[in-house]
């Protein structure tokens, strides 16, 4: 048990009238630390907040941004909701698929990239919206994709 994570979670919990409210920020912290919410990560959060690991799994699995399976070090998310789809999101997605050699929902074998589609990202007027490591790029056209992938490949992990 890393006592740093434990202590950080205690600090967050103190902000709320009830400690349980800290579960989402605590899971986010644990995910940043472990890369994903492994059973071990869930156990640590559970211990810090005095809930069960099962409870942590119940919460984590409800939200799309928590990963209960390992994901790549870079996360590429393409919005394919209507507004983006109307202006070519599927073509952008396919450009990423061919550039990365994986399908939506998959992670590259080297563990560097996860590609997935997401529901409306909230940049509809500037579609297609692509979130790269949680920073929005908008608008992205299919022809921008090789450059983005190249940029990520050359960046240190």
């Amino acid at each position, binding site marked *: 048990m890393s006592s740093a994570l434990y202590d950080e979670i205690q600090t967050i919990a103190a*902000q*709320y*009238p*009830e*400690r*349980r*409210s*800290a*579960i*989402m*920020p605590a*899971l*986010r912290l644990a995910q940043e630390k472990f890369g994903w919410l492994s059973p071990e990560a869930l156990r640590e959060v559970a211990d810090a907040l005095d809930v069960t690991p099962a409870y942590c799994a*119940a*919460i984590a*699995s*409800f*939200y*799309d*941004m*928590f*990963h*209960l*399976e390992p*994901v790549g070090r870079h996360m590429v998310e393409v919005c*394919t*909701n*209507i*507004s983006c*789809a*109307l*202006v*070519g*999101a*599927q073509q952008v*997605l396919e450009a990423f698929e061919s550039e990365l050699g994986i*399908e*939506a*929902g*998959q*992670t590259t074998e080297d563990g560097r990239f*996860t590609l*997935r*589609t*997401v*529901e*409306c*990202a*909230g*940049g*509809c*007027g*500037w*579609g297609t919206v692509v*979130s790269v490591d*949680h*920073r*929005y790029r*908008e608008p992205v056209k299919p022809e921008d994709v090789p450059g983005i992938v190249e940029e990520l490949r050359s960046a240190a992990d």
Partner: protein
Amino acid sequence: MPPTRKAKHKLLFAQAEGRDLTRLPEYERVGGYESLKKALKMERSAVVDELLAANLRGRGGAGFPTGRKASFLPKPGDTPKPIYLVANADESEPGTFKDREIMARIPHMFIEGIVIAAHAIGASAAFIYLRGEYLREFEIVRDALEEARHAGLAGPNVLGSGWDLTIVIHRGAGAYICGEETALLESLEGKRGQPRSKPPFPAISGVYESPTLINNVETLATVPKIIELGGKKYAKLGVENSTGTRVFSLSGNVANGGNYEVELGTSLRELIYDIGGGIPGGRELKAIIPGGSSVPVLTAAEVDTPLDFDSMARAGTMLGSGAVIVMDDRCCMVQLGLRVAQFYMHESCGKCTPCREGTRWMVSILRKIEEGEASQGELDLLLNVCDRILGNCLCPLGDAAAMPVASYVARFRAEYQRHIDEGGCPFDGDSTLDHVMAPVDQHHARVRSEIEVPA
């Protein structure tokens, strides 16, 4: 985020052009936090009276009068419990991105609105439930809040009044349903974001079983302007029953997508053509979703409908979240139905039966229609399933799936019929929404989806 283009009657964004209002000094230079100072000198009830006089209606979707909602809360002396304010910044209605721009460009106006509203109800703490994906906006609001705290505009002893207001930013983690107010409260309490049965309403028993006022970002950001102008003067903007301005999110097949703040009552035509630059590529307007994906669709013929609550209701639809999605003639309405249904299936929280099972069923039928394998009976079945969801769910999400899809069939019946008659999609692969990969269909990186998605 590309800059927002000039629109006509700006109120919230009036001074944001060419200025960095994310910085406190700049915001104060254009009169920022003057409304707060004014409000703190007013009785709580007088602040609520201004909101009532302004006839401000919620900008989150339901359009409930804000002043009335605030007046449902018990007075601070009349309840042993603390009173809370919650800002709904979970913006995730498809097509909507206005709250994001408000937080990114005028965060202090949003914070000022929070402090004024918290004063009006006597809150001791406020929570900003901020959509998890909005990382940059979180950073901006967080920094602005820090500035405001340093300046004594929030936190302990606000402006020397002796009143303490703690403001906590609570980040979401990707669940559309958490925009629904009671699901949001559950999520804020550290539970699964599933809606609660009402009553009790949040005004009586909200977060931590305490009286809670929940308002949308734009609603709260409008509050300082109402205090500045006075409710009566604000009410002169817009039209009857739909006062003031609204930030409309314009997207889809339109030349200049973006957020535009205009007076309520402006017509769809003006927004789409005069402000948005019309339909690009010489295509024709086919359909408009006027208030986010949860509302019924309008046809091109209805483009003159004014953007206000009553006119939209008369046209059989709703102003919703103010997200105007424009579709040109390349859009297959069956694919639209399928993609919208897929969204709601993905976002159904799983608590109540009709929504959980019904949205999945809708997706199955729509896919069959799109693939040209549905019988006539199945088109009727689709409408019947929509009908059986409508009004029977715990929260409005089920309705939000059934209503728009039923409207697509109603207004574009011939197109649905062609899919059945011709045994396939008449667009033959040329529709803009052809084979779009929806998150429900992809292999999930979260819990392995054990449901078998009908092929």
